């Protein structure tokens, strides 16, 4: 089989040894290490990737199920919702309804990837190229991850969180902790800062911090505090009306989109430990937020990298044709994109879309058509696709990536079309298809469907009169007339009330018309 040692068909002739690295399905740690080094050479020297050091852990199926239920984290605090996830996954796996992933990778430094023990050597190779280099590079270089996550600190933070919550359970009881966690989980999608860093402390807070630093120097300052709190100062009158609202808003940093942050800082009823629990949930939500925004890019990057690497390995004669076929087989399964009318269809496959787009960028760089030159004048024919891709991986998220790079050629290839659904009309309408008039709209609408700011409801805390009835007022800015799911909303507001301690109300205001469409409140529910 190995026969005539091919003198490398591709570019990698110089470095290639024509001896395959492995032959047969079984893996050993020595073999894994050798293959890792071969992959690393291609990844770093050829593709020019920049990765965290790798820590590759081999786990069993059961441990994979464990990892599933902890949102892929190496450590996690304990909560029933993870148990729910676990029993469901376990049930489905044991009954043969679903398979398990080949790997899970954690955005940390060193980059931890979990590989399944039952993978064959060929699959381990594929998985290493995919996770340990593709995802790893993306985590280290993409601006969202760089700005918002602390890869080297996450493991310590998780350990802290797990211990802290375990201590709280011991001290205050599992039920007490569960109440706070349930409520915080319900709001975790609204526990992230979408557009900027946490707001700067207000003047009042700065003063308070100052006082704290001074250690309550004089009896007088405590007395002042007490007097302010109890007697309410003499500004009570001024709090009425618009002026009062403005004052409150600036004191509380309102409006605030990060509801958990607001509760943590300003809830009148929470104990310090409860605030810390909320902070943990908020912190993890923020840590995972970039991943939600880069599904297509992240998977596309990893898939593109593994595909390039396995081809290079094959060109250099480092893998046997059999192993190569096995890897290509898995690869094609991963990037399968059934059409909308296929029974297997369940939306656009992020692996497929990302991979196709990146392949398409290569094509545009190397072999552009007239159309490409018109659409992408800055990259068409520039030849250096490696730089273009690295730049894209570093500086875009799904939405902006699609908006920037989805080409008419690919829209035609995937035969994308847009269906518009207006509630008042009985019929659905095909509004755009893959033709010159539709390219821009298809691209814009597809990009927007990956924009979390559009997908997740825009809800902000707008007012809370701490000296009045203390009702927490939320405002949902309604886009395109899409309101909140009523049942869910009702339940979440109840959780919110538990954390805030007083009544909570929500009004949905249409963005364009600026009029109230609906409202919900926790009042009169008992």
């Amino acid at each position, binding site marked *: 089989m190995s026969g005539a040692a091919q003198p490398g068909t591709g570019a990698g002739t110089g470095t290639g040894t024509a001896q395959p690295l492995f032959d047969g399905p079984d893996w050993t*740690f020595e073999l894994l290490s050798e293959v890792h080094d071969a992959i690393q050479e291609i990844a770093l020297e050829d593709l020019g990737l920049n990765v965290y050091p*790798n820590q*590759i*852990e081999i786990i069993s199926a*059961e*441990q994979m199920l464990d990892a599933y*239920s*902890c949102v892929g984290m190496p450590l996690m605090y*304990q909560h*029933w*919702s*993870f*148990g*729910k996830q*676990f*029993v*469901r996954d*376990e*049930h489905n796996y044991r009954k043969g309804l679903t398979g398990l992933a080949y790997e899970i990778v954690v955005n940390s430094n060193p980059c931890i990837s979990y590989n399944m*023990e039952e993978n064959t050597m060929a699959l381990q190779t594929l998985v290493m190229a995919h996770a*340990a280099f593709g995802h790893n590079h993306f985590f280290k270089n993409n601006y969202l991850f760089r700005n918002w996550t602390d890869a080297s600190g996450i493991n310590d933070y998780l350990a802290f969180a797990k211990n802290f919550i375990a201590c709280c359970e011991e001290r205050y009881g*599992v039920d007490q902790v569960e109440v706070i966690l*349930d409520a915080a989980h*319900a*709001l975790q999608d609204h526990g992230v800062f979408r557009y900027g860093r946490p707001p700067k402390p207000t003047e009042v807070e700065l003063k308070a911090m100052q006082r704290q630093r001074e250690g309550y120097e004089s009896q007088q300052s405590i007395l002042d505090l007490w007097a302010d709190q109890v007697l309410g100062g003499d500004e009570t009158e001024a709090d009425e009306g618009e002026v009062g609202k403005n004052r409150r808003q600036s004191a509380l940093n309102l409006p605030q989109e990060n509801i958990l942050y607001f509760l943590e800082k300003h809830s009148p009823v929470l104990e310090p430990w409860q605030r810390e629990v909320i902070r943990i949930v908020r912190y993890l939500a923020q840590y995972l937020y970039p991943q939600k925004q880069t599904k297509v890019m992240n998977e596309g990057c990893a898939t593109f990298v593994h595909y390039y690497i396995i081809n290079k390995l094959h060109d250099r004669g480092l893998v046997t044709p059999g192993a190569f076929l096995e890897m290509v087989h898995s690869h094609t399964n991963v990037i399968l994109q059934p*059409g*909308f*009318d*296929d*029974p297997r*269809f*369940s*939306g*656009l496959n992020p692996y497929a879309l990302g991979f196709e787009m990146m392949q398409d960028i290569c094509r545009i760089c190397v072999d552009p058509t007239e159309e490409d030159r018109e659409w992408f004048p800055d990259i068409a024919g520039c030849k250096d696709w490696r730089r273009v891709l690295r730049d894209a991986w570093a500086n875009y998220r799904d939405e902006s990536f699609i908006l920037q790079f989805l080409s008419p050629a690919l829209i035609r290839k995937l035969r*994308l079309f*847009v*269906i*518009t*659904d*207006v*509630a008042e009309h*009985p*019929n*659905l*309408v*095909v509004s755009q298809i*893959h033709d010159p008039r*539709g390219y821009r709209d*298809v691209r814009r609408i*597809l990009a927007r469907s990956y924009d979390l700011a559009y*997908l*997740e409801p825009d809800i902000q805390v707008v007012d809370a009169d701490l000296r009045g009835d203390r009702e927490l007022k939320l405002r949902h800015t309604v886009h*395109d007339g*899409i*309101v*909140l*799911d009523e*049942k*869910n909303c009702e339940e*979440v507001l109840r959780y919110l009330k538990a954390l805030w301690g007083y009544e909570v109300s929500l009004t949905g205001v249409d963005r364009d018309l600026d009029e109230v469409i609906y409202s919900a409140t926790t009042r009169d529910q008992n």
Partner: protein
Amino acid sequence: MHHFIDRRPNPAGKSLGNRQRFLRRARHHIKDIVDKSVRERSVSGRNSRELAQGERVTIPVKGIKEPRLVHSNQGGMRQRVFPGNKEFVVGDSFPRPKSGQGGGGKKASEDGEGEDGFSFSLTREEYLEMLFEGLELPDLVKKNLIETKTISYRRAGITTAGTPSNLNLLRTMRNSLGRRIALQRPSLSKFNALKARIEELEALEAPCDDEFAELEELRQQLGRLERKRKVVGFIDPVDLRFDTHLPEIVLNSKAVVFCLMDVSGSMQEREKDLAKRFFILLNLFLERCYEHTEIVFVCHTQHAREVDEDTFFYSRETGGTVVSSALTEMLKIIKDRYPTDEWNIYGAQASDGENFGNDSEKCQQLLQHQLLPLCQYYAYVEILSESDEVLMNDPEQGADLWQACLRVKKRWPSFEMQRVCSPADIYPVFRALFAPRTAAAVAP
């Protein structure tokens, strides 16, 4: 710069804490399902073995929901991009599909969390824990079980020699086929085709030279084939494979549980349900200790007879109540079918405590002198009606039968008796019945 870590030896069950928290959270729902499953479950046979494997439960999602602030999937204006357009052009329209939005093949409840329920599997231990309201199933009688030794045969692989009755046909034929292919044994069809051609040629009245030569050639070929078919036999001694079995001494082999119940008119649905729970527990418990358990159901009015499970629990009979008839029947069955040197015999009797006339005295005699010497253990459960609940606290008081049993109990430590009034009593009673005793106390 990389390193590999083998995590496989790490302790398993990292999710145990989460799992327990989930079960705790959903306890209320799961308990309902488990209780219901007991009611519908049969005591013996397939279902109870299923129970040993763990239990699939589906609970309503209410109570374990994780609400989020999400968009409603109805109303408003939406646009969605789909792949794989075939014939649509701009402006095409079609009615909105009934399920889901957007006209695609999007399935409802992708995450398996539809409106109907949430399915998962409980392990056997979790199931039993739920069943017994969070109490541990104690490891009780196990030590006291008297182990009988028997010899059984265990499969021990394949050998090349053995008696024809142990011939493993599948393996043998597989070898035979492989050998025939490898040695190119001529197939019968090829052989027959050749023969037919020869016959055809022989039938010719005046064969020409060519045909004559062909005939000669074919005859020789036929001869070679025949020889080869003889040399390479259809089955050769080297193909033969035999199953082997090794004798093994087996302990704890067999137990039989006699479920005795009064089915006269006074035993209503409630009483039977309580009795059934008790019998299920007993059977589950014994199944853990013995490799093989059998259950014999004996029901009685003034006559006793052996019945199948359905009849036992669901038949309605009328008549008087003569408890001793059941005991006599049990004795008879033991004598007929269950020799005491092979079988561990357990008796469990449920009754509402009524008995005819001076029959209780007879029962006492039967138990003391005939039955108890044969049994490992005998449990008597008296099911009180709701109005008699006061008796629960007063074990000395009771009707004839209870008094008789009290007398038996004084003499025989392997005899236990308890009273039950509501489903919640069953488990504590069960535990009391099977409270640990020293091995010496067990009757020989």
